[in-house]
């Protein structure tokens, strides 16, 4: 049947599930990914979903990768085509030699298939309908039945899947046994009727180690719990809502007084993003650690308050789970497109601190650190996540916390300090680092009170429109931003094996694809030093890296090469030496894309690959 040899690969392939949104497939698909992890084989799953609740197409892609490449790969080796609506596109998307798994209950005309793929039909609906009568059960168990059939086709250990089902339905015996039953229905049918296993196989390995499997939004929310956030105000917006929802769930578990049952946190769903950031600023002004989570449109709405936070120097933490813009853009697609919008948010001269975590583990660490930074610097700290990290389970190192760690509450003048007669000027730079002292409301009957305002004022918080007074304050804010450089996470550099004149800068969710691309480029003989930027303002090592290389590629997921703009602007360097590599179609960037884009440019530069030069 095939005129192309079927793909044969162990622990290195991509399976994509095409489903209908709201059909209950998500939990079965996630179980598939987890089951492979239990084989000791890393996976990198991704949800590709519409901005819709029920009825529209949705995909779940699982990259099986013993080598541990956690970025999206591109291409599909096996399509589990459960959605007639997207059939043609799904079938067309399979790699030559790939596999198509479908529900063969209703016969399909041969024109609906391809000659160069292996077609696997399982009469899922027929099996389901002969076993179950309840329509809801039929729908849900159909998903488990295809999971069972896949386990046979891919040579997976059914015991490991049963174990997962056991953990998921612990204490719900009826559900547990009926799920196991459905699993074996599919598995047995495949074993009896199909040639199992296929060329694509899972083989037990030990490459997962102690890593954990978590969504970035949940990790960031946990970071907020560990970082001492007590006030969360938010407004629902994809893809950020699950941050606040996870924070709520974590707080219910870990933040209630064991004796009184009372909550050591307050969560308010605001009426909009304006109210959410207003609540955060009010709470932070009053000495609580507060945050909001939002996405691009929310950032646009919050900018007036962000300017107030900058100018009146009030801490705030904003988690921005970026999605494709502008305007409503593509709400369920990923991008890194709010770099400029956040770095310079609000009218007037403003600059803000941005943190760029690469995965859930860093999302946890940076989220906790954001509260220390916000209170130390008395300004807004942006945690710049994106949909790719935020809403997908990602394999990452275990979360760590040092129990000796105390929160850095920043420069707060206490009742005792005021009693000692310390000079309190709310905007007085006493230490030369641009950071003044603040007082919490209600501290002292006669000392330390001040009037907070978004208007210009002098070092003692007295209203002033004097040019020199205004400029003095603006200069101090610049000094404060310079101080921030050494407080934020530093860039991480990884040099090529041999010295090279070429470098690459990248950040955030591009990280796994970049790591993999380096391997592909090296295989083609291109050597590149790497610098992963983890925060803005840029540390001085960014300027050094630029100085050390003739050309530096800046890889990012937006159209206008926003990080590159920021680097050019902040470092005052020749833009020609910074080559933009941009990917912005809403899908996660892949190693293949990066390697091709950089490889092509290197070719244009007439760089002779080392391997050729040597041979």
């Amino acid at each position: 049947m095939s005129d192309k040899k079927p793909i044969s690969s162990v622990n290195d392939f991509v399976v994509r599930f095409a489903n209908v949104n709201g059909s209950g497939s998500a939990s079965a698909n996630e179980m598939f990914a987890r089951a492979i992890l239990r084989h000791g084989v890393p996976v990198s799953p991704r949800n590709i979903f519409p901005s819709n609740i029920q009825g529209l197409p949705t995909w779940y892609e699982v990259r099986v990768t013993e080598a541990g490449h956690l970025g999206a790969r591109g291409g599909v080796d096996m399509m589990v085509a459960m959605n007639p609506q997207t059939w043609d596109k799904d079938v067309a998307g399979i790699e030559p030699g790939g596999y198509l798994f479908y529900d063969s209950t209703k016969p399909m005309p041969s024109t609906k298939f391809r000659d160069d793929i292996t077609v696997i039909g399982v009469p899922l609906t027929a099996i389901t309908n002969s076993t179950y009568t309840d329509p809801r059960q039929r729908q849900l168990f159909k998903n488990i039945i295809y999971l069972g059939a896949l386990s046979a086709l891919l040579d997976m250990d059914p015991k490991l899947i049963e174990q997962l089902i056991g953990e998921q339905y612990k204490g719900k015996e009826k559900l547990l046994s009926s799920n196991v039953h459905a699993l074996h229905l599919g598995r047995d049918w495949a074993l009896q009727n199909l040639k199992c296993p296929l060329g694509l196989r899972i083989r037990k390995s030990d490459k997962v180690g102690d890593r954990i499997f978590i969504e970035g939004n949940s990790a960031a929310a946990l970071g907020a719990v560990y970082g001492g956030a007590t006030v969360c105000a938010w407004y629902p917006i994809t893809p950020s809502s699950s941050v606040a929802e996870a924070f709520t769930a974590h707080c219910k578990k870990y933040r209630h007084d064991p004796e009184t049952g009372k909550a050591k946190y307050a969560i308010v769903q605001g009426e909009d993003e304006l109210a959410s950031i207003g609540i955060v600023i009010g709470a932070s002004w009053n000495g609580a650690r507060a945050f909001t989570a939002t996405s691009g449109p929310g950032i646009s709405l919050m900018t007036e308050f962000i300017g107030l936070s900058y100018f009146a120097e009030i801490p705030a933490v904003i988690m921005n789970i970026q999605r494709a813009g502008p305007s409503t853009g593509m709400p369920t697609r990923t991008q890194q497109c709010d770099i400029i919008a956040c770095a310079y948010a609000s009218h007037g001269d403003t600059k803000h601190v941005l943190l760029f975590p690469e995965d859930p583990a860093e999302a946890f660490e940076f989220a906790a650190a954001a509260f220390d930074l916000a209170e130390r610097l008395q300004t807004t700290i942006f945690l710049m996540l994106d949909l790719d990290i935020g809403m997908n389970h990602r394999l990452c190192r275990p979360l760590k916390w040092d129990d000796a760690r105390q929160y850095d509450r920043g420069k707060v003048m206490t009742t005792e300090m005021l009693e000692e007669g310390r000079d309190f000027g709310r905007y007085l730079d006493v230490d030369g680092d641009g950071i003044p002292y603040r007082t919490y409301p209600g501290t002292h009957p006669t000392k330390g009170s001040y009037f907070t305002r978004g208007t210009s004022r002098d070092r003692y918080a007295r209203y002033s429109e004097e040019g020199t007074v205004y400029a003095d304050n603006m200069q101090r804010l610049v000094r404060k931003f310079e101080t921030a450089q050494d407080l934020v996470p530093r860039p991480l550099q990884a040099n090529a094996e041999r010295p090279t004149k070429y470098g690459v800068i990248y950040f955030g969710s591009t990280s796994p694809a970049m790591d993999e691309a380096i391997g592909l480029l090296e295989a083609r003989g291109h050597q590149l030093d790497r610098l992963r930027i983890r925060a803005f303002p840029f540390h001085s090592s960014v300027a050094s890296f630029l100085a050390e290389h003739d050309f530096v590629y800046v890889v990012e997921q937006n159209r206008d090469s926003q990080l590159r703009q920021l680097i050019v602007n902040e470092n005052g360097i020749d833009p020609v030496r910074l080559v933009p590599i941009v990917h912005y179609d809403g899908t996660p960037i892949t190693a293949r894309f990066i390697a091709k884009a950089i490889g092509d440019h290197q070719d244009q530069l007439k760089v002779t690959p080392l391997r050729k030069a040597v041979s």
Partner: protein
Amino acid sequence: MTYIAKPKFHHPGLKKNELGYTHRDYEGKISTLCAGCGHDSITASIIEACYELSIEPHRVAKISGIGCSSKTPDYFLGNSHGFNSVHGRMPSVLTGANLANRDLIYLGVSGDGDSASIGFGQFAHSIRRGVNMTYIVENNGVYGLTKGQFSATADRGSKSKKGVTNTDNAIDLVAIALQLGATFVARSFSGDKTQLVPLIAAAIRHKGASFIDVISPCIAFNNHAGSTKSFDYVREHNDAVNRLDVLVGRDPIAVDYAPGTVQVVEQHDGSKIALRKIEADYDPHDRLGAQTFLARHAAKGQIVTGLLFVDPDAEDLHAHLNTVETPLNTLEADTLCPGSAVLDKINASLR
């Protein structure tokens, strides 16, 4: 006036309240508003109410938005922290501040532009959440700082100083507050301190969302014939339902009044409000009745003032959220951070 620094000395015989503070301890900077502005009268009433209640001045947080009214927190309670925030956003900033420290007294000062236009949403949502605050709108029906544009509380048919007639319907913030579930709703007039001072005092003692709409004529842009927010118009059309006294830790003085005309309301914190009834059949515990009463009088062109509604057993946002008694801003890592052992368990559950 405003270039003069306010002198700190005062008469040694100045009367002191229970905490030993004089009236002067509740004052702020010299007002920069126009001479004769209704807002300054409200400022004086706030000072008087806080003095009367023997509040520690620094335990009040004064929060405002943008506009003439929002400037006033600088003119009272000089030893309190103040926050002149963003236009129309006082309610959210106040809500956040309140969540951070439930032990302070929150005074939200706003205007009709700030609360009925740009901040209408925030006004509504802070009220419906039951934030424990005293929300005062200094309502003059006009944008003063930008020189005389109509605000959303200007009555239909009223005339601006330039002679333009307002064709839009007015928003009655009191009616809205009642509908949204405010648990203390009052209206007063900046020129009527005897009514306003006890209203502010009672609102401060109320645990929940207290809302006071204070008609406050704008001397510069809305005090002419044809305006329905001028001193003359309000005096002529004011229909007070009651007058009150607030009794905190003192013997009730209700006995001073004739039986049947005084109604004593005990609030959550034990303070008592003695209502001297003017409208004999007015019941301040009846939300629906208050709404009807208000609508009926508005149709007649009357401005109803006094304590219109109070729920003495109200619950606030902290009660709804079941938060700890200790202010959240005092909690540290030892109580907030679940620690590494819990994190190890979380890690284990994610494999």
